[in-house]
């Protein structure tokens, strides 16, 4: 087992952190308050190569291996305090780009991947419906085949990137094919007739990541826009969720490292009772716990990234990495506020924002409860 980073990985991660610090944190407090998506930062990320990291070189990406990609996303999480921007990027990378790479035809890949990689177009993954959240596969959206087209009808909610999206990966049940054999996914142009997207939800955190509702009413989609065969919907959804659970949370690991650094610095400089607060065991112990959580999350993420690189299925490992990292991020965010006292509670300090952002991570990509359900089943319970 070799835990050392290669020279190339070290160079890339240092460059990513420096880039993030310089270009991704501008006006964050203002943007967070206004709930504003940073399109310029999105473009800057594309120029740096973020969106192209997991896309093979022959399809316009950087073709990075899974672990290197996770390391870069962690480095961005360390340098970039805009967790909303990183969440939007991750959502596109793992649940729009990767499905295209794995399931797309050459024509579909050519049509969408270059634009997604260059930052010219933005993608969203549309699964959740008003009646189906955790029970995602029992959706109500319908696809009716009419010659060389499908007519899609259905409603989706809580869709990341929807208000700024150009393309949506929309899941629907093909009429006359019941159950999993009919569950299918379609690439839908967000500006096509019959597509209505509404946004403007006032979220607790991840406020720079736009989220919206989608209503499709008799939306005509060419059959060549179906991703994979009819019935591939479950495979596509499971695949993208496993990728998200394996890699999206690398950015949370970076954020936890950033929090820990800030806490150590503050604990060494803030004096009470005539000494730095870090000399009090209760404060030091909190920071030690933050370190343990960070290291454990990191190892879970690196291991699942390594397994994915071998082409192995890793449902249990991905669920464990997701469950632990998201819960650890929430706990570390609380500890960071506590260690900073009242200063940590003020918006001005920028520390409370991490807690608001972190809480969502225990809900998206499958809630913590659902990760435990997956793990229980994988354990044979």
């Amino acid at each position, binding site marked *: 087992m070799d835990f050392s980073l290669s020279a190339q990985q070290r160079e890339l991660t240092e460059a990513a952190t420096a880039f993030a610090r310089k270009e991704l944190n501008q006006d964050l407090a203002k943007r967070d308050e206004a709930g504003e998506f940073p399109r310029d930062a999105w473009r800057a990320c594309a120029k740096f190569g973020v969106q192209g990291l997991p896309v093979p070189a022959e399809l316009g990406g950087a073709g990075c291996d899974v672990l290197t990609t996770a390391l870069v996303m962690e480095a961005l999480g360390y340098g970039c305090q805009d967790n909303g921007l990183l969440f939007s990027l991750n959502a596109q990378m793992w649940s729009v780009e990767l499905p295209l790479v794995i399931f797309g035809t050459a024509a579909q890949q050519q049509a969408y991947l270059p634009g997604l990689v260059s930052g010219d177009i933005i993608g969203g993954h549309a699964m959740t419906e008003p009646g189906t959240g955790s029970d995602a596969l029992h959706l109500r959206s319908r696809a009716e085949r009419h010659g060389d087209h499908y007519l899609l009808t259905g409603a989706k909610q809580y869709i990341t990137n929807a208000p700024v999206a150009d393309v949506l990966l929309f899941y629907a049940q093909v009429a006359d094919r019941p159950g999993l054999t009919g569950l299918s996914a379609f690439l839908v142009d967000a500006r096509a007739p019959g597509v209505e997207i509404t946004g403007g939800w006032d979220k607790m955190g991840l406020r720079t990541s736009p989220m919206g509702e989608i209503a499709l009413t008799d939306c005509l989609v060419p059959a060549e826009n179906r991703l994979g065969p009819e019935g591939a919907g*479950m495979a*596509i959804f499971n695949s993208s969720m496993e990728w998200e659970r394996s890699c999206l949370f690398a950015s949370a690991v970076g954020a936890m490292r950033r929090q820990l650094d800030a806490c150590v610095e503050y604990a060494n400089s803030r004096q009470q009772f005539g000494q730095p607060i870090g000399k009090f065991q209760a404060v030091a112990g909190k920071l030690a716990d933050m370190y343990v959580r960070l290291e454990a999350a990191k190892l879970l993420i690196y291991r699942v990234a390594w397994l994915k690189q071998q082409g192995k299925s890793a449902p249990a490992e991905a669920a464990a990495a997701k469950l632990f990292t998201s819960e650890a991020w929430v706990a570390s965010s609380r500890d960071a506020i506590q260690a900073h006292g009242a200063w940590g509670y003020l918006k001005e300090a920028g520390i409370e924002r991490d807690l608001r952002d972190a809480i969502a991570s225990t809900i998206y990509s499958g809630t913590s409860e659902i990760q435990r359900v997956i793990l229980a089943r994988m354990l044979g319970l």
Partner: protein
Amino acid sequence: METIIKDYISQELVRDPELLPLADEASLLDSGILDSLSLLQLVVFLEERFAITVGDADLLPENFASVNTICAYLRAREPEKQAAHG
């Protein structure tokens, strides 16, 4: 191969004893024996037992519809596996 797979599914994945004994052509999806989670359990088992990797794009209902289709899928993978082992 049929026996190994049938035994695993019967012992580990079938929750309703009324569905046993399992026929090779019995539908695993329509009967609810395989759902999105038990399918993942089965895939992990197949990867370990037959020393293969099952790509995400192969997790299609047609490959996992019955014991027969699973075996057909695995047999189609044989030449690939032999090539990989030189």
